[in-house]
């Protein structure tokens, strides 16, 4: 039989170290997009904090984190289809729909609340799964399929909430939109949040913890599965992925479902944050479009194959930080859209300057 016993590499230690150094350099370069976005975010945020009239306080951090969360999750949701060289124009609608569901269900006894949260998350994932089915079995381009389903989801959201309103349980709403101490105090955990070991972390806003948990528990494991790898492979070259015998349909379904899940989590949080549901069509559209911008700023290529939801999260933070800065510099609200647009154009156009370094013009057309 053909048991392929491999001859061990007789690599010398020096070679190994060289490899390692080389590998580090390569990784560094391959993640240049994310690192650039991170540097941009840190710079902008530092600038914001330094210029903040009340200086750096935990309260501001919490407020910022709350404002970032929904967009960060919607952007992460957008990332998954973009990695497959598709776009999901329904992320904003799914977020809105799940928010409306939450405004009906996340209230009452703890068991009811728990069930409500599960239903919210499941309905987000279900929306994503439907998108996936339309794309995979309907063989319709993702951008158009999700354009259509987003109308359907908005319609459903309007049925659930013809006018803004509803209610979510107040304790929960308070707990997830403040820092860890308050979170513990609300639910009577860790000596009402006064446990000594908790104190070094007590200032961390809950939304940031949730973001980290979502990335560690959902995103990172996903990229380490064959399905997740296949998502990248499809974006890189779908026919090659097929030839390599990868589970393409499964990966597409999983990718859209994951996108729906992320968008749903964003919607759930938005409902908790605003204590209501609102089937606001322009707002859903704005979230969708901003998510695309965040994905690109976060270093994910719209052509698919490279990037990460972590980058998109940072991209969302960059976008939000820009508007934080407007706030403290008292830019007339009327001028804010203009500056936002100019900043976005400038950021993406800078990327265009690297074209000047391309010595082979054919590389432009990749």
């Amino acid at each position, binding site marked *: *039989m*053909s*048991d*392929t016993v*491999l*001859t*061990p*590499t007789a*690599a010398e230690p020096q070679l190994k170290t060289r*490899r390692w150094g*080389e*590998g580090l350099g*390569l*990784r560094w370069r*391959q993640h240049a997009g994310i690192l650039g976005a991170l540097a941009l975010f840190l710079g902008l945020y530092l600038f914001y904090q330094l210029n903040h009239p009340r200086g750096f306080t935990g309260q501001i951090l919490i407020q910022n984190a709350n404002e970032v969360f929904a967009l960060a999750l919607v952007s992460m949701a957008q990332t998954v289809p973009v990695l497959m060289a598709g776009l999901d124009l329904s992320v904003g609608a799914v977020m809105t729909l799940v928010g409306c569901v939450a405004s009906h269900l996340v209230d009452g006894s703890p068991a009811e609340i728990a069930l409500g949260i599960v239903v919210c998350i499941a309905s987000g994932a279900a929306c994503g799964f439907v998108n996936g089915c339309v794309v995979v079995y309907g063989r319709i381009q993702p951008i158009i399929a999700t354009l259509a389903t987003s109308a359907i989801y908005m319609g459903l959201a309007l049925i659930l909430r013809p006018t803004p309103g509803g209610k979510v349980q107040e304790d929960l709403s308070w707990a997830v939109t403040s820092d860890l101490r308050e979170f513990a105090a609300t639910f009577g955990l860790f000596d009402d949040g006064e446990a000594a070991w908790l104190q070094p972390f007590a200032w961390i806003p809950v939304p940031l913890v949730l973001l980290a948990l979502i990335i560690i528990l959902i995103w990172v*494991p996903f990229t*380490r*599965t*064959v399905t997740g*790898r296949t998502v*990248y*492979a499809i*974006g*890189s*070259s779908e*026919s*090659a*992925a*097929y*030839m*390599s*015998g*990868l*589970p393409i349909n499964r990966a597409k379904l999983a990718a859209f479902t994951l996108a729906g899940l992320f968008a749903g989590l964003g919607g759930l949080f938005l409902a908790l944050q605003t204590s209501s549901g609102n089937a606001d069509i322009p707002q859903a559209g704005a979230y969708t479009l901003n998510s695309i911008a965040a994905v690109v700023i976060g270093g994910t*290529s719209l052509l*698919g*194959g*490279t990037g990460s939801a972590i980058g998109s999260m940072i991209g969302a933070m960059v976008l939000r930080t820009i508007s934080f800065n407007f706030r403290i510099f008292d830019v007339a609200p009327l001028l804010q859209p203009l500056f936002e647009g100019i900043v976005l154009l400038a950021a993406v156009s800078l990327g265009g300057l690297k074209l000047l370094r*391309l*010595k*082979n*013009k*054919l590389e432009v057309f*990749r």
Partner: protein
Amino acid sequence: MPAPASFFALENISKRYGGVHALRDVDFACNRGSIHAVLGENGAGKSTLMKIMTGVVQPDEGRMTLEGAPVTFPNPAAANRAGIVCIFQELSLMPELTVADNITLSRPPRRFGFIDGRAQRLRSEELLARIGCEDINPLSRVSDLPLSRRQMVEIAKALGRDPKLLILDEATSALTSADVDRVYRMLFELKARDLSILYISHRMHEIEALADRCSVFRNGRHIETFAKGSRSNDEIVGLMIGREIEGQFPPKLRRTRPAPLITIRDLSWEDRLNGVGLEAGRGEIVGLGGLDGQGQKELLLALFGVLRGVRGTVTLEGEPTAATSPKAAKSGQARMALVPEDRKSEGLILSMSIADNISMASLDRLSHGMFIDAGRTRRAVERAIEQLRIKTGNSGDPVSTLSGGNQQKVVIAKWLATNPDIILLNDPTRGIDVGTKQEIYRLMRELAEQGACILFYSTDYEELIGCCDRVAVMYDGRVVRELEGEAITERNLIASALNIVEQREPAHV
């Protein structure tokens, strides 16, 4: 044929695409521990056969047996699981993923259900080492590797799947000769381990060196299978094209060297071109020789205005020029044309019609102002189809419906319609059947006779010897030697390609 230990057998396989029979009633079998060459012109049905064996397409009729048991492969994954692995001519790598990701793509090493990055890297290193490619870092992105390295990654990827039947479809077409040697050694080693290997190639000397048995396909039928050595090369070629061929290459006319039409001095670009000097005149076919990747392709691209930051001078008919884009190159005072390396992504727009493709480069000559003259365009297309004998039912069909050879003819027709003075050919016969190759050789000679100047890059020494009036051999971004007339021999070509003449000892290989 008696086949006692038939490993994988196909019986009565037929496959139709629309009304066209790609395969008709084919019986085919391959055995363990042998290298089996499959020969045939493009469109003979080899690719379809491979696609059926690897589950990419399903046969309309017939059955397949693996080790005596009937099997069907609904998709490539199923064939892979059965141990049938193919190295396709069109690379099946994901350019944005790393080498290691690619090599272990379908069955990565896992720990607790998740991909183990370290184990994956180690395994990739082992597999690459096995084919002598320790120089490839498994963490590089495939898109950052040159074509020849990618091909080796592709081979490593196939090896990593524990194949029982390994199919190589023109897998060496992009390799350097050193890599080809390594691949040969690997194939012999695999054969010794009782693997079954199918080898598809257009290069006769490769088949001579490797195969135990040969099967010839023609027009979707399996013509004959025979042991190596039982047929002469001429007989094999005769079987492939169904008729005897006389004189592969058209005769060269002996005459004095014409005045230069294009003069290249000190052309440099990045680290790929290091001061190229070359002249070529009307009526000449000047070959570009040398090992793969010595700057030949870059030279052609630089002349055609694709590269930025080119230094040195290019003189056309005594006038210094520097094309800044293909548009400038094709409409300068001496019009240039480039038949690019990859016809499917660079030469053609596959989904557009044959007519649209043929008229693509010459639309400005076929228009009044901004409006296309439909009648003139139609006549031009008809003329081109006739001149190049492109086999087509309807010129409105997408060019993707043509066979590889006819597609390449469309690329050439597109450029002939611009009436070029200088024709740059980048390996125009790669992956093309024998019959079309001969037509292209004849056409090149005709064009030269009519006053065109042709720069011809080829990886095939026979072609350079047979076609060219002169060959400029390139090494490390320079022309190291020019061979003319009788001096163009395989021996001289190889010696100068290795740059043995200038440096006393061979550089590498």
